[in-house]
């Protein structure tokens, strides 16, 4: 197990390195001059050159990457003299539009996205899985049909429709959200109630989409597992239906859902662009979309992209470890 972990961890590290290199490489060859973006329309060549030097963009790309990696571990200084600016480790760079260390921007946005992702995850997993189990147990009865209807609605409604509908016709209509304060970040440690009110509707919007997928997936897995020979064996032993479901069917049927859930959660941690946009949540999704569409803020894009990749890679690792714990066949094979 330790050996397996060590191998997986080093592979993870390698993948993260490769991802960061390729993202860095892509930005290096983009037909866009980051230095020119640092000042407005009436910008003179000397100023651009000075900024280019200040931001460390005047050296070859591999040196830039080296500095970037070094900055991740020890922090980084930009510019000299009075204009000098220090970003502490882990430094992803300096946003020349927001005039702020990228790490600071990310650190501000991350708790928002984390709150959004965790809440939505809990909601969709509990609703999706229990609805799926119910539909499987009551196959072809009205409960199953109701669940199927829910799945159809959930999967066919894009978040930009369901989000706006819920915002307009539920949240604002019944004064459940203060339109002025909408999306204001409140730490759950300071004011759990306000935090909950900020996030409950975004959670519902995201959960609606994901729960539908999980309902369908759980339903078909439970139905399929129910026909396995070992379920018949469990019944032949004299186990009651509740224990057969709880101990035998669900253990096997829900194992693949862990993979799906881990990856979906990680994907969401990278930022839910549309949902954050609709509910004005200052999370990673909005940070990225603003950096991409408005500011051409390359260091920020770099940071959010790498971060999203890291989330997915780490989630993959955790899912694999968890899976080995659940399925003894995987454990021994490794």
């Amino acid at each position, binding site marked *: 197990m330790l050996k397996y972990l060590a191998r997986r961890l080093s592979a993870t590290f390698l993948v993260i390195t490769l991802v960061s290199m390729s993202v860095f490489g892509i930005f290096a060859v983009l037909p866009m001059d980051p230095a020119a973006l640092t000042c407005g329309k009436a910008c003179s060549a000397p100023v651009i050159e000075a900024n280019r030097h200040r931001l460390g963009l005047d050296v070859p790309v591999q040196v830039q990457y080296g500095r970037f990696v070094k900055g991740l571990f020890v922090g980084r200084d930009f510019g000299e003299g009075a204009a000098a600016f220090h970003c502490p480790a882990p430094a992803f760079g300096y946003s020349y539009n927001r005039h702020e260390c990228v790490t600071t921007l990310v650190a501000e946005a991350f708790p928002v996205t984390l709150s959004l992702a965790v809440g939505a995850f809990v909601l969709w997993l509990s609703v999706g899985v229990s609805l799926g189990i119910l539909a499987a147990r009551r196959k072809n009865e009205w409960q199953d049909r109701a669940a199927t209807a829910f799945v159809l609605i959930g999967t066919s409604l894009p978040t930009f429709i369901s989000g706006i509908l819920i915002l307009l016709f539920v949240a604002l209509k019944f004064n459940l959200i203060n339109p002025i304060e909408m999306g204001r970040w409140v730490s759950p440690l300071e004011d759990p109630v306000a935090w909950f009110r900020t996030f409950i509707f975004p959670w519902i919007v995201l959960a609606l989409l994901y729960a539908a997928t999980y309902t369908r997936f759980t339903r078909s897995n439970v139905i399929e597992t129910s026909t396995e*020979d*070992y379920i*018949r*064996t469990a019944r*032949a032993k004299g186990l009651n239906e509740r224990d057969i479901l709880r*101990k035998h069917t669900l253990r096997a049927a829900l194992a693949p859902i862990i993979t799906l859930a881990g990856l979906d959660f990680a994907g969401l941690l990278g930022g839910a662009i549309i949902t954050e946009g609709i509910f004005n949540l200052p999370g990673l999704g909005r940070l990225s979309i603003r950096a991409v569409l408005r500011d051409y803020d390359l260091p920020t894009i770099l940071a959010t992209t790498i971060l999203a990749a890291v989330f997915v890679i780490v989630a993959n690792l955790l899912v694999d470890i968890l899976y080995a714990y659940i399925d*003894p*066949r995987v454990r021994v094979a490794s």
Partner: protein
Amino acid sequence: MTLKPFLEVKNLNVAFPTEDGLVQASNDISFTVARGETLAVVGESGSGKSVTSLAVMGLHDRKRTQITGQAFLNLESGPVDVISADAEVVRKLRGKAMSMIFQDPMSALHPYYSIGNQLIEAWSLYNEGDKAAGKKRAIEMLDLVGIPDASKRVDEFPHQFSGGMRQRVMIAMALINNPSLLIADEPTTALDVTVQSQILQLIREMQKEFNMALILITHDLGVVAEVADRVNVMYAGKIVESGSAEDIYYRPDHPYSIGLLNSIPKIGELDSKRLVAIPGQPPSLINLPRGCSFRARCSFSDRVANNLCATTAPTLDTKTTDHFSRCHLTEAELVKARKESGGI
């Protein structure tokens, strides 16, 4: 045998409603098995062998199956009809009064739980006591069915066992609560030939050890000859012949049984002739043909007068003492048919 039978099945019918119509999988089945007795049920796939025993075990989904008739378990506390009894009552008999092992030991054990866990689970359903006591009993049973190093292997998982060893585990699990009836549904079909006889031997030993009634479902007539006291030959959902193993082997009284026995290759006659197969396919179990179900494949039906085979379904009649056959031919005609078709 004068033993009071442990299981008495009377006029059991099992049918599955489908979109195409009602599939009559088991048709008017009656038989008995006593403790210490072995009943072999022989027939090709789809002849209703498993369906009948699953009905006795109460393992059919009651919502999707129509079951009529009776199946009495003669327990010490009195007889219980497992067909009409409450599902919960039947559940509490499973694993305790009656147990079942299945064809494919590769898929019959839960891949996520250790062997010990699965055995202890079965044990704790009917025994008071902590996990340690259950584990002790599990090791005892594994030892009994011939798992070497049982105290160590009890913590291993199914995929770490070979097919034969898994079937031993299944047997240990089925017997852990000392049942009075064991139904073995093709227990050796999925195993290597070399392992088959070991498992069969083990089942016989266990039958003696626990003094169980044993129903052995198989399509392997070699298996039947070795172990059975009585044999039921099934065809298209019906018992077509029933008798002692000797009767079925040496004096088969149904053209189907005669055909089955003739289709076994005989050592020493390897180059003398081709294998004899029964021509044709069994009929669909939806809308069974009028008359005898086997008529279309029977080489002797033209010997019955008045085209009786096509119009009237034969009943299970006594041909000789304690030997029943569902055929319009008389015993004399059957003896002749036996001789003509290879001189069994």
